[in-house]
């Protein structure tokens, strides 16, 4: 059983379009995240959610809008896509208690903006 699953795995789209990436975790975790990994492999946190509430927004442009309908899901919607949005986006989850401990990552969603 996949613990953290993201769809789609690959996404190719034109500049200016709007797209969404979905994430689901079946680990019963309280906290979920979105990370962006650029072409140099730098992995940067974008958002953290705890029990459906946004707790970290790491100066991400407001074209990016995360939505957490419940604890097990965290989706990422991106408006007006730009070339610089091309990257691999990773969803992750962790236990929320104590704000410490390991993260469980999905397999990533590779977004290519043409």
């Amino acid at each position, binding site marked *: 059983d996949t613990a953290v699953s993201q769809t789609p795995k690959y996404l190719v789209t034109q500049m200016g379009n709007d797209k969404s990436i979905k994430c689901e975790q079946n680990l019963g975790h309280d906290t979920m995240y979105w990370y962006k990994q650029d072409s140099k*492999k730098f*992995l940067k946190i974008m958002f*953290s959610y705890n029990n459906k509430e946004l*707790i970290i927004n790491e100066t991400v442009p407001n074209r990016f809008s995360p939505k957490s309908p419940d604890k097990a899901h965290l989706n990422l919607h991106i408006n007006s896509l730009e070339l610089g949005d091309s990257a691999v986006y990773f969803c*992750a989850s*962790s236990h929320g208690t104590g*704000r410490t401990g*390991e993260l469980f*990552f999905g397999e990533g969603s590779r977004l290519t903006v043409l």
Partner: protein
Amino acid sequence: SQQGEEDPQALSIQEGENATMNCSYKTSINNLQWYRQNSGRGLVHLILIRSNEREKHSGRLRVTLDTSKKSSSLLITASRAADTASYFCAPELSNFGNEKLTFGTGTRLTIIP
């Protein structure tokens, strides 16, 4: 801002040799974690060392932590071809915990058969 910085950026060794990767960070931490990323895959947690620990072992992995120097090292002994991957350190900042776990660009390790 980038907190964990891995060094070297790339490392190639012969199978069976030991591989050492280093990590430096900037502020006080609760703990420090190491992750592995195989090509085209997500990150997988390897080991966590708490700020009051100096050394920790897990199988062929040995992690050290020196909070006075704000540095950590990951040693993989008796390397195997399957260890080829990128390795990331992630300092868990005291102010934020794992809500804002920060990573660097990783060390790309290649094991030559």
